[in-house]
C-alpha cells in the first residue's frame, strides 16, 4: 500500500515549477497532432506564398488542356467519319464551299440570303449552309452563279433537330421572328432552358452534330406537344461569308 501511495503522490512543487514550460510545449504538440497540423500548415502557407504556382503555370496547364481537347476532337472526328463511312451514312464526299453573302433579308416577310456561289460550284438545293457559330439554313434554289438560302427563321423552314442533353428529337420550325420554335414529338419533352440544340447525329440530309442554337424558353402547355423557343447560335446579321456543305461526286439523297 505504501508503494502505491508513493506512485500516486503529486510531484514536488519545485519540479513542477521547473518543468511547466516543457509541459506547455508538450500540450501544444498534442494539440497539433489532434488538429492535424493546424498552425504549422498555415504558417507554411503564409511563408511560402511568394513561391506559390502563379498564373503562368495555370495558363500553361490550360493551354495543354485545350491542346489535348483539340487533338482528341480531331481524333474523334476522324473516327466518327470512318465509322459513318462504314455505316454508309455519308453519301458522296462532302466538301465545304465558301460563299459571300450578296443579299440579306433577315427580317420581313421572307428571311433569306443570296450567296455568290451557285450551281457551277456544285451547290444544289437542300445543301446545308453554315456560318461561324453553327447552322444557318438550307439552300432553297440555285442559279449558275448564285444560290438562295432559306434561313432557319423563315416561316417555311422546317428541319429535324436533336437535343442531346435530353435525348429528344424535335422539329425546328421558323416563326418569321429571330427565334424559331422547337416542336417536340413526344408529349413529355423534359427540355430545359439552356439545352443545346444540334442537328441529329444520324442525319444524312444535314451534316450531323452541328450546333443550331440554345433553348431559350419552354412552353410546357402548348398543344399538342411542348414547344420551345430557340436562340440560334450563328449570328445572321453579322455573317458576310458562309460555308455550304456540298456533296461532290456522290448520289444525292
Amino acid at each position, binding site marked *: 500500500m505504501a508503494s502505491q501511495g508513493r506512485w500516486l503522490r503529486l510531484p514536488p512543487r519545485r519540479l513542477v515549477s521547473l518543468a511547466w514550460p516543457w509541459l506547455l510545449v508538450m500540450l501544444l504538440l498534442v494539440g497539433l497532432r489532434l488538429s492535424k497540423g493546424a498552425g504549422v500548415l498555415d504558417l507554411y502557407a503564409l511563408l511560402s506564398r511568394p513561391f506559390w504556382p502563379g498564373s503562368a503555370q495555370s495558363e500553361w496547364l490550360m493551354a495543354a488542356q485545350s491542346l489535348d481537347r483539340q487533338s482528341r476532337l480531331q481524333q474523334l472526328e476522324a473516327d466518327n467519319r470512318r465509322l459513318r463511312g462504314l455505316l454508309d451514312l455519308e453519301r458522296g464526299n462532302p466538301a465545304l464551299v465558301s460563299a459571300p453573302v*450578296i*443579299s*440579306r*433579308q*433577315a*427580317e*420581313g*416577310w*421572307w428571311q*433569306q440570303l*443570296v450567296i455568290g456561289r451557285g450551281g457551277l460550284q456544285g451547290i444544289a438545293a437542300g445543301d446545308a449552309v453554315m456560318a461561324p457559330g453553327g447552322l444557318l439554313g438550307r439552300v*432553297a*434554289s440555285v442559279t449558275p452563279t448564285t444560290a*438562295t438560302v*432559306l434561313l432557319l427563321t*423563315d*416561316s*417555311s423552314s422546317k428541319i429535324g433537330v436533336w437535343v442531346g442533353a435530353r435525348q429528344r428529337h424535335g422539329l425546328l*420550325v*421558323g*416563326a*418569321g*421572328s*429571330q427565334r424559331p*420554335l422547337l416542336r417536340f414529338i413526344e408529349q413529355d419533352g423534359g427540355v430545359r432552358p439552356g439545352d443545346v440544340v444540334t442537328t441529329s447525329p444520324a442525319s444524312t440530309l444535314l451534316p450531323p452534330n452541328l450546333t443550331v442554337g440554345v433553348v431559350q424558353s419552354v412552353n410546357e402547355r402548348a398543344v399538342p406537344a411542348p414547344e420551345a423557343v430557340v436562340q440560334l447560335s450563328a449570328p445572321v446579321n453579322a455573317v458576310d461569308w458562309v460555308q455550304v456543305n456540298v456533296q461532290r461526286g456522290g448520289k444525292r439523297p
Partner: protein
Amino acid sequence: MSVLLRQRWTPLTAGLVPLLMLASPAPLQLAGVPPSWAALWLLPWALVDGPFSGVLAGVVLGLLLDALHAGPVSEIPALALLGWWWGRLGRRSSPIERSFSLGLLALLGAALQGVLIWLQQLWWGETNVAALHTLLAQTLITAVLAPALCSLQLLFWRQLAPAVGADPISRMRWTRSR
C-alpha cells in the same frame, strides 16, 4: 390608255424593284424591315397608266418577286389588285398628286399586301409570330417613303403621258398628236 406601256423602255424601270429588294439598303429600313418597293413603283405607274396597265404591271412585278422568294407564298394577287385599284383611281376627274394622298394610298396598299401575304402564310400552315410587327413596320416605312419617291415618279410619268385620265381634252389632244 396604257400610254406608258406603249413606250418600249418605260416598263424596264420595273426592273429596279427586284434590284432594290435584293440590295435592301439599310438606311431605308424600319426595325430591319424594308419598304414594299413594288408598291412604291406600282402606285405612280398605275395612277398615270390606268387599270389595265396597272394589273399587267402588278402581275409582272409579282412574277419577278416570286421568283426571288423561297416558299409558296405569292405576291401576285395583292399587286394585281393594287394595280387595278390605283389605275381606277387615276382615271378620276381630279388627278391624285398631293403627297399626302400618295402616302395614304401607299399605306393602304402596303397594308393590303402584307395582309394578303399573312393570310397565305396561314393558309399554308406556316407560323409567323412576327407577322404583325412586319406588317406594321413595312406599312409605315412604305407610307413614309411614298410622298418623296412616288411624287417624283408621278411627275416623270406625267411628263411622258400628260394627264391622260384627268381631262378628256388633253387626252384627245395627246391621242391626235400621236
